[in-house]
């Protein structure tokens, strides 16, 4: 099932060392440029040879160092779409797509190509050269060409980076369709958080040639393993903290951020935290609650209540973002509130307010 790889590749001053497996799903390789994402695709496609490891896809062995197997890129039958400059400039759209076919009779070639042209909504452009169609159309042609022979997996190297935002939206939808139509693993390389978030079920965070964290999208966004992952994901409300003491009686760790105490249950972090240790604390903007005045709070919230001032409010169409600073410690929180809740709260810039953090929503990176 799917694709499983173990890759080691050393090139000048850089070492890629990764191991992962995915099913027939869209997996996103996310990270900043130079982290080894594109190299991973080239190794899988056979355009580069790993120094060690293996590449297996749905029961086929593409590469296996110990037994010396190294299938040529031609025999791997993978679809590969690059960021840009994909299409052969000396061929028309139809010729480009047909180039993805192997053998077959003239009639069959014609109908297969026509099917792809329909599926990717390229009618009317068949006889144009790539230089005369738009960026989005080019990437659709590239996808059609890569998929026409029904590849065993689809490799996409920043396929939407060269497109503007409205086209990206359209391409994302197209990719969803592709995933439904072709049941194959899709590996998408991107450094765009939105692409990663909207397209990937499974995300692998690449940092310096290693997979820093891999997992389901929501897991990673809620529980980043390290500060580096949190930063690369652009997560808000990330605080440096220090373990001040352990409350044996209440089974709590007390963490200090700028002198302000935060309380988290010990259960989750058993053995990983001791008094005096520097850690990172994270809470998602939508998990921060703003308390209504005079309202009593549940026990689970009572541990982490802070008073402060609202610095700013921005309207983000479906929700509001409130910037809140605690009176003590001057810690800045970014808070996302759905519009209906926002209206009930009666908030305004400069006003005093209180926030409450559920202990379970606080995530500590040790």
């Amino acid at each position, binding site marked *: 099932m799917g694709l499983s790889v173990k890759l080691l590749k050393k090139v000048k001053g850089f070492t890629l060392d990764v191991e992962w497996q995915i099913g027939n799903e869209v997996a996103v390789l996310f990270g900043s440029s130079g982290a080894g994402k594109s190299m991973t695709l080239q190794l899988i496609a056979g355009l580069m040879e790993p120094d060690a490891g293996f590449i297996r896809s749905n029961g086929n062995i593409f590469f296996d160092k110990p037994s010396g197997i190294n299938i*040529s*890129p031609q025999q*791997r039958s993978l*679809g590969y779409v690059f960021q840009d*400059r994909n299409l*052969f400039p*000396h061929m028309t759209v139809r010729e480009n797509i047909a180039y993805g076919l*192997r053998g077959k009779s003239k009639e069959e070639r014609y109908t297969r190509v026509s099917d792809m042209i329909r599926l990717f909504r390229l009618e009317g452009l068949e006889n144009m050269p790539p230089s005369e169609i738009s960026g989005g159309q080019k990437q659709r042609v590239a996808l059609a*060409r890569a998929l026409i*022979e029904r590849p065993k997996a689809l490799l996409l190297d920043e396929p939407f980076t060269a497109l503007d935002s409205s086209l990206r939206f359209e391409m994302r939808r197209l990719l969803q369709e592709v995933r439904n139509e072709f049941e194959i693993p899709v590996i998408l390389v991107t450094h765009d958080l939105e692409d990663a978030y909207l397209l990937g079920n499974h995300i692998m965070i690449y940092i310096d040639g290693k997979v820093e964290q891999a997992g389901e999208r929501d897991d990673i966004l809620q529980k980043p393993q390290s500060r580096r992952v949190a930063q690369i994901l652009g997560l808000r409300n990330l605080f440096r903290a220090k373990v001040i003491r352990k409350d044996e009686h209440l089974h709590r760790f007390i963490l200090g951020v700028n002198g302000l105490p935060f309380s988290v249950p010990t259960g989750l972090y058993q053995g990983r935290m001791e008094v005096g240790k520097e850690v990172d604390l994270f809470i998602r903007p939508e998990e921060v609650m703003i308390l209504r005045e005079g309202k009593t709070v549940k026990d689970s919230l009572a541990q982490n209540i802070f008073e402060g001032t609202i610095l700013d409010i921005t309207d983000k169409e479906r929700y509001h973002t409130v910037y809140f600073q605690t009176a003590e410690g001057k810690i800045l929180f970014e808070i996302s509130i759905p519009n209906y809740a926002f209206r009930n709260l009666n908030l305004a810039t400069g006003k005093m307010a209180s926030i409450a953090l559920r202990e379970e929503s606080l995530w500590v990176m040790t």
Partner: protein
Amino acid sequence: MGVAYLLAMKTFRGKEVLDILFTLPLVLPPTVTGYYLVILFGRNGLIGGILYEWAGWSIMFTWYAAVLASFIVALPLMMKATRAAIESVDRNLINASYTLGHSEFETAIRVTLPLAKRGIVAGAVLSFARAMGEFGATLMIAGNIPGKTDTMPISIYSHASSGDWSKANLMVIFFSLMSGLFLYIANRFTRRIF
């Protein structure tokens, strides 16, 4: 072209040596190139000797020799231009062709060479012009036998040195015009590479 393709696409031991070997005629004085040719193809030469033993014939002082000399001297231009043209083809496109299941040979025929076509044609035109103007090496290996091995540059030399200015003038003007035309054609091809 095969050599140029190898030099452009592959990395192998001795690649630079091969490149230097094929480029030498460009920088060597033509008489030196001609000297090498005489050594190689002369009646006692490495290749010429074998040929003479087998066929009892030598290339020396025939018009074949003039062609050979022109060819060798023009080769570096052709090869350099072809190598540069092939190297300028986007590696992504070649890789795309491989992942689409096309062999290296098929990719060369259907993608690499068509995209390098303009550069190759420009190189061919330039090297043809160079071959036409070949003088030194030709003189060394083919000599100057009127009506047989006297190429145009050689007969211009003969006419000028024997004081036959009108014939020399005519040939010089013709030659200049031809060369100008070739350069124009070569430029047109190199400029419109997309």
